[in-house]
């Protein structure tokens, strides 16, 4: 399924009666599309991830390689960058907890480093990392990563290696569960990443 069509379907869903219907998100390209839709519509996003791969060059390259026809992959990734810039420019809030953050958080990626750095200093982005020894891989069965927005939209991975996730654009019950989950991670297991 083309990414453009996928995005159009989601935009149709979010405004229609099917907004509370859960759907599957099957690969990196779909991940980028859902993230773009969430960034366009939400005001407060909470993201629990491994290493913030969605905002990294490697991720962009893989999406572009998977969707080469009509430069669809590139278009979607550029759209994602624009959506993130607009989201932060509008003063909205993005909280991120990373399970395995890179040490060179702001310098590893050419595309997003300035945005992440600038808005972390401004306070629009709050960056946390899971404390040493509390990472789920070390603790046993890994935690599923997720993004939850405005207590109603969410995307939660169910197969991390394939970027397969369950998503919903309007389900307050499940979104609140994820939001509480995020808050307990933030307060109990995470620590702020120092801005160097």
């Amino acid at each position, binding site marked *: *399924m083309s990414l453009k069509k996928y995005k159009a379907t989601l935009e149709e869903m979010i405004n229609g009666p099917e907004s509370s219907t*859960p759907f*599957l998100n099957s690969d990196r390209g779909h991940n980028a599309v859902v993230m773009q839709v969430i960034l366009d519509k939400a005001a407060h996003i909470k993201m629990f991830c491994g290493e913030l791969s969605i905002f990294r060059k490697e991720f962009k390259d893989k999406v572009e390689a998977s969707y080469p026809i009509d430069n669809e992959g590139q278009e979607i990734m550029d759209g994602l960058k624009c959506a993130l810039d607009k989201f932060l420019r509008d003063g909205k809030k993005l909280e991120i907890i990373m399970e395995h953050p890179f040490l060179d958080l702001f310098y590893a990626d050419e595309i997003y480093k300035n945005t992440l750095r600038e808005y972390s200093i401004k306070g629009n982005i709050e960056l946390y990392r899971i404390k040493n020894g509390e990472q789920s891989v070390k603790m046993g*069965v890994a935690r599923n990563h*997720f993004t939850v927005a405005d207590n109603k939209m969410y995307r939660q991975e169910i197969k991390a290696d394939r970027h397969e996730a369950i998503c919903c654009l309007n389900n307050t019950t499940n979104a609140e*569960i994820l939001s509480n*989950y995020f808050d307990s991670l933030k307060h*109990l297991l995470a620590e702020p990443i120092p801005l160097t």
Partner: protein
Amino acid sequence: MMFLYTSSHFSLLDGSQTLLGVLATIVILCVILNANNPIHSILSSVREKISTTITDIAKEVVDQIRDDVRYLLLRIREKGDEPEDGEVKKGLPIILINEIQPIENRCNTEFDKIKGKYLNHCEYISETEEQTSAPIYTFLFCLIVFICEELLYYPNIIGKDQLMTFLLSFVLLSCVLWTSLWGFFIGRTRLKTDREKKTSPIVPMNWTRWLYKAGTCIGLFLVLYVLFIWAYSHFNISLLIDAFPIIAIGLIIISSVPFWGLRGLRRFNIKHNNYSKTFIFSHFSNITLLSIIYAFIVYFLSSMMKEIPLFINSPTWAEDIRGTLKFIIIMFVIINGLVLPFCMVLFRYNHCIRIAYKDVSYHKNNFQREIDEYKKKL
């Protein structure tokens, strides 16, 4: 005359000075929470063990629930039909996944909270003031006892009766203070299981309840006093008269609870470690001062009411009470200075792990029930 002591060389401790000196030396080692404190060293290793156990039991359950949820998701994927290309994948399997995945999310949240709650509580117990305050108070207590012992021993010092009354009052008040403090320690460090919390909401302490308690104390004093007078006038029980100094001090202490106890009680009604060493030093000085006042009150009462035989005039009373007082002093130093700072904390760690097991088991059963329902459906 209230207390008559007959010997010019009066020794309260009578050969137990060395024992009390040794105990005071051991007690002084326990006033700081560091590696040199033998009690703290043992309790630290107990705490580490308990923290590991709590982490392990929570991890075990979370892993099991996560495994079960993943297994269910796998089965749904196997059973579900793949949607045709060109559609956003929706349908019954996705709805089921969307229902089951939150169980794992709630389980993660719940067990992260449980782990955090119990590890924080263990840390809170390990830092409680009582562990160091009790030895500090006990050491000061030993100093007062040694000073009194020295004064009692000198033949030419006057007011030894009052000194004995002071010591008796000081020991009794110290026992009352530390019984209350350890009682509040137990209350403050008590945990409720999540099941108990659901069934019995916490009722906050308020002034009405404190007033009720104060009223009960005054009522109790009046009842005890009337009973005492009635028993004495009807049965002339000599034991009552022999024990009257203790009874008099006890009644005065109880009657004074509304005046000095309420402030203290209000300060005990704390959920965190917000009383400090200053609290202990101020209570030590207050108790010393109160004991001096009580000694004089009892002395003046006995002088003024000689015709009412309510005050002791047995010449052997001081000798009789000496053995009991010495026993109480030594037991107080051992129990409050060494045994309770260790046993109470150990007891609370034990309580913490028992409640943690109950909570883990309660939540595990709840999540397991939900998963079992989906297993049946599938």
